[in-house]
């Protein structure tokens, strides 16, 4: 069953001279098993929208429904929606890593071996070795590691919906790869639905099967496509900075040749370009 937003509006400071409309009449449904990107320029309202969907902020108008039920705030989702905050410092609050990751599963009633397994699995899925990190203090790890701890804390609860705010920010290449693989796997294995906010979505592009674009608090685009050229076109129209791979394929398409069948996976794009160059050299 989907999570549905119906005409959701929100403003900071309900009245007065500093009133700022953040979200304006947002309506869409997130269907089971989807991985959707929520894109838009800074200040478009992406983070606020995630907070409303997670039941942390009450909209001024409109409703958020989960399985056709309007949810009571705050946190009326019973752990069905997991949210990763924009900055791990906003999320990590326990003294050591084990307690931090175990916080959610404990609230779900897990104890003993089951609890330990949930924590270990979550850590491994984001590339954190339990034997190395389990007892370490959350204040004594790097920001990239803290980001992974925050993700593990959410994954350990096995939520049906994941709302992720910049999941790859601050991660090095290897850690980012581990997180992308992890997100792909839990989507495939458990059918977890995801809405992912990303400023530079380059490496996440292969995951997405839907794009929601916010601008000045309005949902200006909602489209589904895998085609690199279509995605590049839509992103450009929404004035969002194109990932390098999409920019490259767009230039190549403008220069001529058939590039329309390529998906928005940078690895695939570079592979196809290399193949074409090789073929061209072979012809010469």
């Amino acid at each position, binding site marked *: 069953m989907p999570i549905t937003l119906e005409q959701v509006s929100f403003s*900071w*400071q*309900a*009245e*007065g*001279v*500093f009133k700022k409309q953040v979200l304006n009449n947002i309506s869409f449904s997130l269907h089971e098993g989807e991985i959707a990107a929520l894109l838009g320029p800074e200040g478009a309202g992406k983070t606020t929208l995630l*907070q409303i969907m*997670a*039941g*942390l*902020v009450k909209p001024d108008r409109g409703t958020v429904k989960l399985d056709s039920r309007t949810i009571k705030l*705050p*946190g009326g989702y*019973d*752990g069905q*929606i*997991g*949210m990763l*905050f924009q900055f791990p410092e*906003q*999320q*990590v*609050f*326990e*003294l050591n890593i084990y307690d931090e990751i175990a*916080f*959610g599963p404990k*609230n*779900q009633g897990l104890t003993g071996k089951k609890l330990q397994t949930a924590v270990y699995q979550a850590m491994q899925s984001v590339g954190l070795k339990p034997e190395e990190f389990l007892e370490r203090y959350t*204040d004594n790890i790097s920001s990239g590691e803290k980001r992974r701890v925050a993700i593990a*804390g*959410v994954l350990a*609860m096995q939520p049906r919906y994941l709302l992720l705010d910049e999941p790859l920010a601050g991660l090095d290449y290897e850690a980012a790869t581990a997180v992308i693989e992890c997100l792909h796997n839990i989507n495939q294995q458990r059918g977890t639905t995801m809405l992912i906010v990303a400023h530079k979505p380059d490496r996440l592009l292969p995951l997405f099967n839907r794009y929601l674009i916010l601008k000045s608090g309005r949902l200006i685009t909602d489209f589904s496509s895998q085609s690199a050229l279509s995605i590049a076109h839509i992103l450009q129209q929404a004035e969002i900075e194109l990932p390098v791979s999409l920019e490259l394929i767009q230039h190549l398409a403008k220069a001529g040749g058939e590039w329309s069948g390529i998906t928005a996976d940078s690895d695939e794009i570079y592979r196809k370009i290399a193949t074409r160059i090789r073929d061209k050299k072979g012809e010469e």
Partner: protein
Amino acid sequence: MGLRMGQYLPLDSPIHRLDPRTKLLVTILLGLASFKAPYPWGLIIIVSMILILVAASRVPLYHYWQDLRPFVLIILITAAIQLFLTPGDYLIGHSPLIITQQGIAGAMGLFMRITGILLLARWLTATTRPVQLTNSLETLLHPLRRIGLPLHELLMIMTLSLSFIPLLGEETVRIQRAQTTRGANLRSGNLLSGTKRIIAIIVPLLRGAMQRAAYLAEAMEDRGYEAGGHRTHLYQQKLALSDYGLFTVVAAAVVLIL
């Protein structure tokens, strides 16, 4: 979310342009007068002056109401106690809830005094930057340095403490949200689970506050702050004709009324 209680509102008004020392002295004078002014006419004049200052600040009334709202219940309860429990000339009601003429005067007076002082406090903080307020206090209390009081350091501690209060509020909301998204039930439960919940919030809150204080100290030292060192001010204080005018009018009114 939105504006914090008592936050400075950067607007353009004659009050915003006044010297912060004038606003501080006017606040002290009118605040004292609100307590001491005789009911009704003395108090009416003082409250009217406060209302004129509030209107001249061009801060929308909503922002005053926003900061007044948490005190409404306390004001009403206190006024009701005055109304029903003040002995005097019988007017209406049955024992034990009897309203007397003195009771009405007491309740009205109390209502006007507390509301006036709260409006005045909000007027000052809405139109004056905290750092300007601290500088004004430092200037006004300057003579105390002669008896060896580390005035600047004390005021710096005061400013930082005041700025930490809303931050602690924000930090509490942050921890509550982080726990809510991971299934913590922050509402229902018995006394024991309620206590556990509070501890689960207070421990990271204190840890975070101490860490923030350490970072702040480091950041200040990195930028050359030194206890006891000579510092210049970004906002230069300069009294204008309007400052002398307002202070004279308020001081004269207060002296005449008291």
